[in-house]
């Protein structure tokens, strides 16, 4: 177990360094000069003013230094929690912009992932033993799973937002309101939350249900289930074992989903103009704000790595089969 931990830590550590380096590199290889953009946006004509503005911005962003120093500074700043300054929302620090967006993303992703997991697996487990439910749940499950997410989201936006008018279709809250701790603002937040959440919830629901159904049916036909039945075990016990074992791969699946928790809502946030990290990525690209892009992506990468690391460890604790695989087994 200790060797395993050390190995995993090393792998994730190296991945992290590579990811940070790539992340630092990519915006610098992208077309478009952010400083020129900002200067252009200021709409000044005077060449001297332009020169001094350029110099000022380059110093602020640290672009006047040799490339290797920029890289080292980037790491140093990273450990101070400093992700630079946003060009688009100048002079707000990138970390501030990102942190403001995080709650929106988590707010739709966490409930969508967890609820679809719970509901989907429950429906799947029930479908595995009820022919009637199976006949309904299976086609519906396949339908919503096969539907491209984009369609589903647009269909929801059109149906519940435009046609029925029950929910707003864009934004995190009404643009006329000022964010504050009040019931009316909370209600407004909730209204804007429903459709993005629902689209994410529905899109993974079918997969969980179908997966669980198939896994349980497979488990119920496995050797240990037959042996228990031959020894007169009641169906309840056999189902309980089957359910437990079927849950293991589902937990891996959940883990993988949790890994996407910070970056997985990109399309959703774009379709519903929801102000989370995904939307931020888009805005950063549109505004050629490479500090913001870097900061957001870095945040997403760290989230993915961290989630997967935790999951690797939890999974080993849950499933004895992986555990013996690690110690070489005694079989």
């Amino acid at each position, binding site marked *: 177990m200790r060797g395993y931990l050390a190995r995993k830590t090393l792998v994730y550590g190296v991945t992290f360094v590579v990811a940070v380096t790539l992340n630092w590199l990519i915006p610098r290889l992208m077309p478009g000069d952010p400083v020129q953009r900002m200067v252009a946006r200021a709409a000044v004509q005077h060449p001297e003013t332009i020169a001094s503005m350029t110099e000022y911005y380059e110093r602020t962003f640290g672009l006047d230094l040799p490339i290797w120093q920029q890289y080292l500074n980037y790491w140093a700043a990273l450990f101070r929690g400093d992700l630079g300054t946003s060009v688009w929302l100048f002079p707000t620090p990138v970390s501030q912009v990102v942190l403001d967006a995080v709650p929106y993303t988590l707010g739709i992703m966490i409930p969508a992932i967890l609820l679809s997991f719970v509901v989907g697996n429950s429906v799947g487990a029930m479908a595995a033993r009820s022919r009637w439910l199976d006949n309904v749940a299976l086609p519906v499950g396949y339908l919503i799973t096969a539907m491209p997410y984009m369609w589903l989201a647009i269909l929801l936006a059109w149906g519940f937002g435009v046609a029925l008018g029950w929910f707003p279709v864009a934004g995190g809250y009404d643009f006329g309101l000022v964010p504050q701790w009040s019931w009316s603002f909370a209600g407004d937040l909730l209204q804007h939350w429903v459709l993005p959440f629902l689209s994410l919830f529905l899109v993974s629901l079918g997969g969980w249900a179908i997966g669980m159904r198939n896994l349980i049916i497979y488990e119920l036909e496995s*050797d240990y289930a037959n042996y228990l039945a031959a020894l*007169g075990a009641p169906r309840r016990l056999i189902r309980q074992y089957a359910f437990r074992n079927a849950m293991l791969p589902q937990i891996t699946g959940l883990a993988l989903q949790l890994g996407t928790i910070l970056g997985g809502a990109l399309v959703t946030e774009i379709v519903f103009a929801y102000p989370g990290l995904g939307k931020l990525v888009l805005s950063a690209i549109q505004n050629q704000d490479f500090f913001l892009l870097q900061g957001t992506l870095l945040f997403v990468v760290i989230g993915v790595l961290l989630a997967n690391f935790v999951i690797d460890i939890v999974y080993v604790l849950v499933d*004895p089969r992986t555990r013996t695989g690690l110690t070489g087994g*005694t079989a």
Partner: protein
Amino acid sequence: MALAVNDLKVWYRTVRGDVKALDGVTFEVADGEIMGIAGESGCGKTTLGKALIRLDTRMRHVGGSVVLDDVELPLADDGAMRRHRYREVSLIPQYAMSAMNPTRKIGRMIRDLLSAHNVRYADVLPELERRLELVGLDAEVLGRYPIELSGGMKQRVVLVLSTLLNPSLLVGDEVTSALDVSSQKAVARALVEFRDHGFVRSMIVITHDISVLFQVADTILVMYAGHLAEKAPAKTIISQPLHPYTKMLIGALPKVGDRYEEQQLEGIEGRPPSLLEPPAGCRFRDRCPLVHDKCAEAPPFRKVAEGHHVACWAVS
């Protein structure tokens, strides 16, 4: 008499029709008897073993009866059968290597199973540990997962588990087939010991390798293509087999062929017939050196001597 099987027919439903894997078999197993069942793969041994304890969803009880300790077993009624399983008739399945839930510790699984039978684990634990010791296992295996055990250890755990409630009849399917020679010997010895200790009253030991049966079986039943060919005490089967198929099976064993003045038969030529549309008459006809006109009719499974039954027209 512990077990009486009468004209039992169990078929598999398939898309191409019924596979008549067990097509009218009649035999008895006495109290304390260890009966071996031998025959090539696919002749219906596993089907017979399963029929006695639990039909799977594709199996259909077409006819005949099974009486255990004077009570007829409700083979086709899964719910009613459940009361007889484990306490009266128990099974060591063909797949014993994967018979235990991989994600439960062995002791925990036994506890779950026992409590489903309203037996307290703590009450049985001393006996359980004693029996594990008897088969050469430390009680510590109860705290392990199946994957942590070797094949021979798993087989012995399954033996102890399957017989824990002292069933009247134990069906062991290919109990030694997956094991190396030394584990085979240990398991074979354990089977006899369990009978001798009275943990199990009677046993049916199924194998495609007839030589295994010489170590454990009192009597041997030879099956061919869903029918019975011969049943006799193990010694008789070795020294005076009567059915041509039995002779071939024995002849296929080099050791036995040397020891007895049997003509050396070069393996067994040909293959058993399809059980989807089995031919009328004796099913061994295509491969039998003694085949004659009469064989177009199915030979009855007749008694030729005390405890010796044969189904063959060429045997007087």
